[in-house]
């Protein structure tokens, strides 16, 4: 079988998800038997103008990034939005809570005018995306699953049920029973409740389920005495860009 050419690209992000790939361990050797990595800034200096699969980390936050991602989309047969920043906008989306000019000046001070900035978007809000691997960072078993799906040409759907489902199967003590609020009930599963298994709460990094129950959530907030502000902050930490809606290319 001819090896598929794969290139990794990064936009606005911490490159931590790509680091997860570099840290994959033995599985990486099996993966490298299948693909030919032609560009991956974090681990090699070679570059390539052609590739079959583009794995894109990071969100789109400048005009230049829009041009760059469009070019990548044109070249690649398959585009994978890799990590929360690419898949849902992620942490960078917190910028969208503020007036763009204000926040630019706050960050860059007197040099602000030299730095272009647009509201943070997930990759699919700029160009069509074939596969999503949400997560901050990505959950490697899910990434491998997506990669296999891409190579086989079959769809991968990010689970549309709550993290609670996987958390229960792992028989964790519920965070709410410990008196701690957790984003599990509204966040998409697929990470095998990674954070809660390790004693942390769910931060909602995988995006919100497609059909969250507003009335039900309010009951929960009341039951556990959680403020609306807390929930909003927690949702906006990773999911603010969803307010921008689907694909927008006219900027």
């Amino acid at each position: 079988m001819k090896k598929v050419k794969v290139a990794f690209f990064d936009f606005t992000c911490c490159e931590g998800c790509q680091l997860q790939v570099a840290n994959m361990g033995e599985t990486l050797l099996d993966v490298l038997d299948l693909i030919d990595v032609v560009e991956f800034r974090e681990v090699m200096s070679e570059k390539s103008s052609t590739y079959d699969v583009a794995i894109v980390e990071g969100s789109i936050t400048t005009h230049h990034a829009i041009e760059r991602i469009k070019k990548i989309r044109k070249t690649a047969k398959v585009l994978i939005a890799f990590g929360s920043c690419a898949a849902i906008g992620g942490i960078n989306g917190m910028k969208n809570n503020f007036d763009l000019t204000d926040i630019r000046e706050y960050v860059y001070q007197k040099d602000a005018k030299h730095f272009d900035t647009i509201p943070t978007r997930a990759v699919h809000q700029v160009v069509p995306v074939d596969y999503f691997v949400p997560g901050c960072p990505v959950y490697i078993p899910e990434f491998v699953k997506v990669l296999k799906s891409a190579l086989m040409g079959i769809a991968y759907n990010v689970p549309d049920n709550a993290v609670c489902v996987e958390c229960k199967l792992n028989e964790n003590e519920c965070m709410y029973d410990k008196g701690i609020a957790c984003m599990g009930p509204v966040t998409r599963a697929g990470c095998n409740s990674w954070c809660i298994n390790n004693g942390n709460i769910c931060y909602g990094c995988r995006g919100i389920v497609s059909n969250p129950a507003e009335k039900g959530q309010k009951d929960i907030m009341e039951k556990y005495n959680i403020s609306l502000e807390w929930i909003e902050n927690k949702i906006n930490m990773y999911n603010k860009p969803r307010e921008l809606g689907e694909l927008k290319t006219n900027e």
Partner: protein
Amino acid sequence: MEKYVVLKKKDFNDFIAKLALMQTVVAPVKKGKKSFAFQEVTTGKEIALQYIPTILPPKKYFMPQQETIMKFNKAKFEWTPVLEYNEITIFGVHTCDLAGIQCLNMVFTNKPKDINYIVRKDKITIIGFECNAYCDEFASCAAMDNHIPNGGYDLFFTELNDSFIIHVNTLMGEKIIEEISLFSKANDDNLKELEELRTKKREIFKNELNTKHSDLKAVFENSFNSKVWKDIGAKCVACGNCTNVCPTCYCFDIKDEMNLDFNTGSRIRVWDSCQNEDFAKVAGGESFREERANRQKHRYMRKFNYPVDKFSRYFCTGCGRCTRTCMAQIKLKETVNALAEEKK
């Protein structure tokens, strides 16, 4: 004749230690503030004898959350069935959970028979443990008639004042009693104490619902268009907790996982839930139970209505797990009472 033996309380740790030498023992272990889980133990000290129903019921040993059922080889066009099982003893199963296992047995031994389940079940030894009082206010075991032992175990422990009295129910149970020589034959005093305890229990445990056991089916049969479902649907967030923790929910999904060699792989069975968004979704994106109200109604019907037709038995054991775990305070007792109230 019924066979009863007695174990002195001071010998309990020794008993578990010896049992653990015979095979893997799992028992309820404290897992946080008010949570318990069945886990492997090697001494009696690890076991929480006074426990409220565990997060997951013992069904996880009968139908694991994830189970490989087949391996395949594409090039050779070959598939091999896989049977995963362990010989284990589950110690400390409450009567509600014994009832749950009885329900699962009915489902999986009925046509089509589930060989994986049947083989696994035969490798599991069950030691029950009696609740002398209510675990908490969410239980409805008396309403479901599961507060007094009704079979489904190899051995059954009841705690008396300074000893445990044990009902020996199967050959496997007898073998354990014989091999671990810590037991003595129960005398008349022991049996009298057990009888008194059961009499006392009948006073403590009273129907927790406003409806007679035999009338429950009729309540649900006539509730398809009830407003109660709408109210519950509005509360539900579809987190799936209620079905995952239910001792009689057995729905599963089957997934094929290709290995990285793109030739071999496995077929895996995982738990599924009627509360999940995608559960009743079909090709084209239509969902037969898009509304949470319908999903919750379905869950209840699968406990109080449909199984009565098919298995002549309610599939609610009264363990109270669904209420305890519900994020949105959907309470089984309230639901049943509201439906019955409406019918009056």
